[in-house]
């Protein structure tokens, strides 16, 4: 990770200057260090990147609670998907091509939970309701979620995935894929809405800032 390395170098120079007593250079160095720390968006590991994404101050995660149900929406940067496809033998050219392949889309992760459990395990009691909810989650979410631009244009959902976790997860997780539309990102924000899927929550809306998506964090791959 380039900016982290720069930071480490700066800290070394900083301590050397402090020893030498060069105050003017120390002052300039401190300013540069502060500036580089503010703009850090390249990470060495997936763990660091995830921690950055999960900090709500950075604007990649949105949380809501309606009638005891917790909705969490997280933007998934392109590099997190790229990392899943590469290995030690991947060349720079291949990496660039994988990055450009995944970079054409926007990935949004949704987690639905009640009392720290999956929706199917915590909310549904009747057998018939369980069946219809499985059907809803596996096949019907495309009709329930909408990505709407600031100017109220709706973007078509390309695909979504709902992996069954059979009660082993703390939430029902889904990933939605939309085209990385330039017109959408020109605006200040866009809306992501989820209609009521039979959980008495009404429609849930998230207002997502495009600023953070345009300068999305990367992995040092």
């Amino acid at each position, binding site marked *: 990770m380039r900016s982290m390395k720069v930071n480490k170098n700066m800290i070394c120079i900083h301590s050397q200057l402090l020893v030498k007593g060069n105050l003017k250079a120390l*002052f300039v160095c401190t300013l540069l260090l502060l500036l580089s720390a503010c703009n850090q968006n390249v990470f060495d590991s997936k763990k660091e990147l995830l921690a950055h994404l999960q900090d709500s101050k950075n604007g990649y995660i949105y949380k809501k609670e309606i009638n005891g149900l917790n909705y969490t929406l997280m933007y998934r940067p392109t590099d997190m998907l790229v990392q899943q496809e590469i290995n030690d033998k991947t060349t720079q050219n291949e990496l660039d091509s994988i990055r450009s392949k995944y970079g054409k889309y926007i990935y949004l992760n949704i987690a639905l939970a009640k009392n720290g459990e999956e929706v199917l395990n915590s909310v549904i009691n009747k057998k018939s309701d369980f069946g219809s909810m499985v059907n809803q989650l596996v096949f019907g979410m495309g009709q329930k979620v909408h990505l709407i631009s*600031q100017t*109220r244009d709706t973007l078509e959902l390309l695909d979504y995935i709902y992996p069954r976790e059979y009660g082993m997860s703390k939430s029902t997780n889904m990933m939605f894929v939309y085209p990385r539309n330039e017109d959408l990102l020109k605006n200040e924000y866009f809306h992501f809405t989820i209609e009521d899927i039979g959980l*008495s929550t*009404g*429609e849930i*809306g998230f207002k997502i800032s495009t600023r953070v998506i345009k300068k999305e964090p990367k992995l040092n791959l």
Partner: protein
Amino acid sequence: MKKLIIPIVSIITIVLISSFVANNSKNELVYVDVNKLIEGYNRTKVEKEAFTEKTNVLKANVDSLITNWQTELKVYEKERSSMGEKEIELRQELLANKQQQINNYQQAVQKQVQEEDQKMTQTLINDINDYVQEYGKKHGYPMIFGAGGNGNIMYAEEASDLTDEVLIGLNAQYEGE
């Protein structure tokens, strides 16, 4: 060293002033009238129309089933004198079963209408809550009260009422302006 003191002091002063401005939230006590917001929100009209359309279809289905049953009842009453005892018994049983089925359907429809109504109201409340939160953060209010006419705010001067301003912003967001 002396040359450095002035720039350092000026930078510290700028940082302090900017942090003071950034953290300076308004200490005003303000409120919004939630009922007025729901009534005045443009989405309410759209959602209510869709709801009415949906419930009208459901009610029309129930009405036509009841009308059919009443017609069958009239026919039975007309033909009853010419029927044998067993046939009367059978027809009565058939009519009673049908009536029970219609009642069950009517109850299911009522439940569905209630659920749709709840969904609609919750959707509007979600929208309003989100916008009021965003408005409060943007304008630096530490708290925005919600007056609902149930006595939680007994008196507030007009200047504390943000309803109109919030409503304008809420509708502008809904219309994509």
